[in-house]
């Protein structure tokens, strides 16, 4: 019965989304106050029904109701509770239900917070209603999560063990909060085009920030997971699915900066609208890449051409519709305000140019193999060297500019003064580069340059934090986010330039020296987990003649799913990771062992956390300002 309840709830939500679309769009007209209240009510109602459907599905997973096909195909009674719950979105249908749930939450937030004028809000709800309706149809016609199995099997097929991990349990909801969060800015931008309201960036800013924070955290989680779970010691593989989250992040970052200029000085008015459309387009394209099964990846659960086709139509309608609206309405809006060549606007313009260019590189690298295969069947892959050659230098150039922006005034800035105030940061950059060249081996000029840039970023941020102590939260937030970039850059550089690794076959009692560590292999024992059996390696970290610590990497075999994954053992000092993975059995108690020593690796994710904190600080300031006062006062306060 519960399955039918869930399906019914989705149908009701679809009906409400259509009401919300109609009433919301009608409410964009000044004299339609009644339609506006209907749209608000529909947004709340839609959330209730989607949450009900999601709750029903979650319940079915928790109690292992195998009469529902999705549960039977993706769950198992022996799974720990947390992975029964995360199994809800560890498959195509459930993850699309999560997608519409997040969409409904954002619509309810737009309706509840009522930021911006009431006509703007109403039109945004109308656009969100259209999007929601399209996704509900997608769900019901191609990806019904509540399909039945008769007779119900006795046991489920289990969940891919790679997904049975705490990092991947929270990674998809986080990423979706980011992907779908961009739908709110998209809706506000489309609404602004309809009603001709300029203040939309202020209304949409919290949603841009939430989306950006969630994307930052989601990407960091994904990369952290790849690092400790795949057992290859890498943190980013330029996999199409990783790129699918990087592209919206790059556009969202550009949008945050461009919208700031629009709000503060009236520059880039039309460009910001276009970016808001582009950001969500990247989310949709990312979804298409992941969900269509066109790319072979751990994330590609299902390869069903009808789904890919449906999403492609949806993308065409959403992007095409928004761009048509843009072409029709944008000329009637006020153009961007002028500014001097030396001004904060110019740095933000360059920021956008570099971000869009780097996104274009990722876009081409990701889609080129698909296009080529579609045309002549040639199978190629584009590897990390392509990105090192294209993406890296562009992003590097962007980072060089970052400290300059906040030091230049709006409309007209003083380059000399800005430059002079950055001398201490420049000093830090030089010291960092010289130190790296003088002390650390192997000597690497690229690493020294990267350290200089990181020193430049972090130094400038420290100056900002000191100079503006007690001042505006927004400046503090920006400084924090920029410092986070520098910290991540240190981590990326450290692991890339100075990682040492050893791949060897070890017999019990053998020792090996990797970097500063001496390791002794003490053999392997067999252990049994809740739903797996594992070979557990016992490797002693030696200090002189004594055992300093025991590390226990595992090779787990999940019996229900017939799959095996490695469970790495990582010992970190905060500045350096010792990373062990157990390989294949080579007979006679001998095992292949993989050892990586990754200097500064933890900084990669620490930096992302600092960036996200900066975003949260800015968000907090925004929401306080919004709650405190009408628009005019909030502008004055910033």
């Amino acid at each position: 019965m519960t399955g039918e309840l869930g399906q019914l709830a989705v149908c009701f939500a679809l009906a409400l989304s259509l009401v919300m679309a109609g009433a919301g769009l009608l409410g964009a007209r000044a004299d339609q106050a009644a339609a506006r209240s209907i749209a608000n009510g529909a947004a709340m109602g839609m959330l209730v029904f989607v949450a009900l459907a999601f709750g029903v599905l979650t319940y079915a997973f928790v109690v292992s109701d195998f009469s529902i096909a999705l549960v039977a195909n993706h769950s198992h009674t022996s799974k720990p509770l947390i992975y029964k719950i995360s199994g809800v979105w560890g498959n195509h249908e459930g993850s699309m239900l999560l997608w519409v749930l997040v969409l409904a939450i954002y619509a309810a937030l737009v309706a509840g917070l009522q930021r911006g004028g009431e006509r703007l809000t109403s039109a945004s709800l109308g656009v969100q209603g259209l999007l929601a309706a399209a996704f509900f149809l997608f769900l019901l016609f191609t990806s019904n999560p509540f399909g039945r199995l008769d007779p119900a099997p006795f046991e489920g097929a289990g969940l891919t063990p790679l997904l049975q991990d705490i990092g991947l349990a929270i990674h998809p909801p986080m990423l979706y909060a980011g992907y779908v969060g961009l739908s709110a800015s998209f809706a506000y931008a489309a609404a602004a085009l309809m009603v001709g309201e300029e203040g939309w960036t202020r209304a949409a800013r919290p949603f841009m920030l939430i989306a950006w924070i969630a994307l930052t955290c989601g990407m960091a989680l994904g990369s952290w997971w790849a690092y400790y779970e795949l057992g290859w010691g890498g943190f980013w593989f330029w996999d199409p699915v990783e790129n699918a989250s990087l592209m919206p992040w790059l556009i969202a970052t550009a949008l945050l900066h461009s919208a700031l200029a629009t709000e503060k000085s009236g520059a880039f008015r039309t460009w910001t609208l276009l970016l808001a459309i582009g950001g969500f387009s990247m989310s949709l394209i990312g979804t298409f890449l992941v969900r269509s099964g066109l790319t072979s990846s751990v994330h590609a659960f299902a390869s069903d051409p009808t789904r890919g086709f449906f999403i492609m139509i949806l993308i065409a309608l959403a992007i095409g519709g928004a761009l048509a609206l843009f072409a029709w309405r944008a000329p009637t809006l006020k153009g961007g305000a002028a500014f001097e060549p030396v001004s904060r606007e110019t740095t933000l313009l360059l920021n956008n140019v570099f971000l869009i260019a780097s996104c274009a590189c990722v876009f081409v690298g990701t889609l080129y193999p698909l296009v080529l295969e579609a045309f002549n069947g040639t199978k190629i892959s584009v590897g990390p060297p392509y990105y090192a050659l294209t993406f890296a230098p562009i992003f590097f150039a962007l980072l060089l500019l970052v400290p300059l922006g906040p030091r230049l005034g709006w409309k007209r800035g003083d380059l000399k003064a800005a430059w002079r105030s950055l001398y201490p940061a420049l000093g830090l950059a030089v010291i960092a580069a010289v130190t790296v060249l003088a002390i650390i081996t192997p000597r690497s000029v690229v690493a020294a340059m990267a350290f200089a840039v990181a020193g430049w970023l972090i130094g400038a941020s420290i100056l900002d934090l000191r100079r503006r102590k007690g001042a505006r939260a927004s400046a503090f937030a920006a400084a924090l986010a920029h410092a986070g970039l520098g910290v991540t850059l240190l981590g990326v550089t450290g692991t890339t330039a100075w990682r040492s690794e050893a791949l060897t076959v070890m017999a019990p009692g053998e020792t090996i020296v990797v970097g500063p560590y001496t390791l002794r292999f003490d053999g392997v024992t067999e252990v049994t987990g809740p739903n797996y059996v594992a070979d557990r390696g016992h490797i002693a970290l030696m200090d002189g003649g004594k055992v300093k610590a025991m590390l226990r990497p595992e090779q787990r075999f999940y019996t229900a799913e017939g799959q095996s994954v490695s469970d790495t053992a990582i010992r970190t000092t905060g500045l350096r990771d010792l990373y062990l993975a157990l390989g294949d059995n080579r007979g006679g108690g001998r095992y292949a062992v993989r050892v990586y020593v990754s200097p500064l690796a933890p900084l990669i994710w620490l930096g992302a956390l600092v960036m996200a904190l900066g975003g949260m600080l800015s968000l907090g300031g925004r929401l306080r300002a919004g709650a405190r006062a009408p628009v005019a006062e909030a502008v004055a306060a910033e």
Partner: protein
Amino acid sequence: MTAKKKRRLAFAAALVAVGAVLAVIVVYGLGQNTMYFRSPTDIAEAKIAPGVSFRLGGLVQQGSVAHGKGADVRFSITDGKSSVPVTFSGVLPALFREGQGVVTTGALNQTGTFIANEVLAKHDEKYMPPEVVDSLKRSGRWKDSGV
């Protein structure tokens, strides 16, 4: 020309310049760094120069896996029609076994042995890399019921 028009023109010119530079970088980058996927039959039919990197995929041939000293391992990759000898030094993926689909990255040496620097096998017993499925279909050795 008015000041506004001048500004627009300068902006458009800058945009074109940036786009052109970007296009050059991307095209050059793709030209240097794309890797083709080949099946053992492709290698038998077409002459591939030693030292050129590509991806080789197929099934690990039954009875071909032999461990050398240290982490060295030799095996053959087959698509049922032709097979290619492969050497690899490193840790094999957990589900690497005879009869399993794999994708390797590397280059041929002078004697026609494929020197792999990376061996990928999915973590799933039932999974078959799509490229391998395609090449098995082309060599007529693919059964839909699974291999």
